[in-house]
């Protein structure tokens, strides 16, 4: 069993390292610093940590003001309240101005678990990727999260980085090279391609193992950057394997599945089956129970692969 780590834990650690590298890095939060792990940065750099209280609109408005004054800002709260509640502030004060704010949103998706539907966001990727100039990143494990956060901080301009609450297996190693905007070929295959993002990358790897026992050779691609999306790797997969299944811990409306279909439909139409939250709200439960109940597991990917290959 691989080591496990929540991507938010990796975020807290990465912030402390980045704080040493960039003396203009400012970290902001809205009264959730223990949960989002920005509190780790606060311990080391209290003078560069700003708590805005339970006021997410003000959080992102003030983040824009700091960024437009030369700061690199990582501003965190739960994904529901960042992408959801503060959407229009992010759109107008951060997106439209191109402010250098990294919206590091934690507790995304069904694996929020017991807190239930009010806190489980399945809409954030859809919302954020419609904003012109917004880079949208969804890391799959702790190692890739740290690498991609460091690249996002080094890059000028707004980015949305989706992070999770639950511990998930580490699938990358420190030597793996990842780059914002480039999909990562996790596993070669010729019969079908599973394109996954976030914590569903690990499920996709498990699904590919299961499929190999049925003599189905599945390619696995990690799309950690949903915008700008790596069109080349998707087109190549569509042409070479002829069928795609997408897997995301997000609504099948507007998320990775939609983004992949936008690429394939115009260049190389193939069947795209989608695994994700099916236009319904979540509920309380353990992350593992909820992943099963809402059909976001390796088993569900396997079923969807069989369906598209029929």
């Amino acid at each position, binding site marked *: 069993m691989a080591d496990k780590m929540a991507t938010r834990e990796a975020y807290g650690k990465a912030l402390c390292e980045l704080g040493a590298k960039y003396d203009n890095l400012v970290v902001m939060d809205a009264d959730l610093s223990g949960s989002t792990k920005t509190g780790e940065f606060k311990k080391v750099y209290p003078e560069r940590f700003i708590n805005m209280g339970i*006021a997410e*609109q*003000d959080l992102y*408005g003030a983040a824009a003001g*700091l960024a437009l004054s030369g700061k690199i800002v990582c501003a965190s709260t739960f994904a529901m309240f960042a992408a959801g509640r503060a959407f229009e502030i992010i759109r107008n004060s951060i997106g*439209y101005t*191109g402010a250098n704010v990294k919206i590091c949103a934690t507790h995304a998706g069904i694996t929020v678990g017991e807190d239930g539907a009010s806190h489980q966001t399945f809409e954030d990727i859809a919302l954020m990727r419609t904003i012109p100039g917004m880079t949208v990143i969804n890391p799959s494990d702790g190692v890739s999260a740290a690498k991609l956060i460091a690249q996002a901080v080094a890059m000028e301009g707004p980015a949305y980085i989706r992070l999770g609450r639950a511990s998930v297996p580490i699938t990358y190693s420190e030597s793996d090279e990842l780059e914002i905007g480039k999909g990562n070929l996790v596993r070669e295959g010729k019969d079908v391609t599973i394109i996954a993002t976030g914590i569903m990358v690990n499920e996709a790897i498990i699904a590919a193992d299961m499929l190999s026992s049925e003599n189905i050779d599945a390619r696995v691609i990690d799309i950690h950057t949903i915008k700008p999306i790596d069109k080349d790797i998707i087109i190549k997969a569509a042409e070479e394997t002829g069928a795609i299944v997408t897997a995301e811990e997000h609504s099948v409306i507007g998320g990775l599945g939609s983004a992949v279909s936008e690429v394939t439909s115009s260049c190389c139409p193939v069947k795209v089956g989608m695994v994700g939250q099916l236009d319904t709200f979540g509920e309380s439960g353990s992350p593992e129970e909820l992943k099963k109940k809402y059909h976001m597991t390796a088993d569900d990917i396997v079923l969807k692969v069989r369906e598209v290959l029929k």
Partner: protein
Amino acid sequence: MTNEELKKIANDIRIDIVKSIHAAGSGHPGGSLSSADILTALYFEVMNIDPENPEMKERDKFILSKGHANPALYAALAERGFFPKEELITLRKPGTKLQGHPNMHYVPGVEMSTGSLGQGLSVAVGMALANKMDNNPGRIYTLHGDGEIQEGMIWEAAMAAVHYKLDNLTAIVDWNGLQIDGKNDDVMKVAPIADKFAGFGWNAFECDGHDIEDIVIALKQAANVKDRPTVIIAKTVKGKGVSFMENEAGWHGKAPDDEQFEKAIKDLGGEM
């Protein structure tokens, strides 16, 4: 500058507001005219700015949070030398720098892209925090509509500005009493504005928003207050200076026709 010189500038700004909105065929004359004296005080007497060096590090910054009053901001910036006055009549036209609501990347001197109400005070809080961190003496100014403060986000920012003791921040409310659907008192009461801000811990007081000397004194007083932000509630008349627009909510967001344009310019003693 003398008070007479400042008054002349404010009047020229009003003429430019009317001309640019007439040329555009749309726009917001009421709240632009009500804020002309406030902008004159800021841009010609109070703020440390340099049109030759608009990115100067220690400059004061102004955010027009009521972005729809941008004809007044554009006129003040052009009058101050940030860009040629001839461009004012390109307002709202295809390809113009002078968008219907201000874009900071197109117009030198515009510090923040605004238009969606309620966001400017939060951005100003961020800028004021950054200046505190950097020991930058630049001050941050914002201008809000009275209707705008119905936005809840204003009060989130009001709380934060006091919490972080942002004495380098001065907010101004253009208190003309009217908004699109009518009087504030009928649509959604905002009064007593100064008391609300004072309750949040701001240094809050009222001034005559058409007496430039009074506005300048108020702004200079604000700069001397320590450990808390100041809000100036500037009592104004919507449509100020154009007889048929004054105190008429209907002139919030429409352009004068040719006949009305002629009368407006006459009211302001301008030339066509």
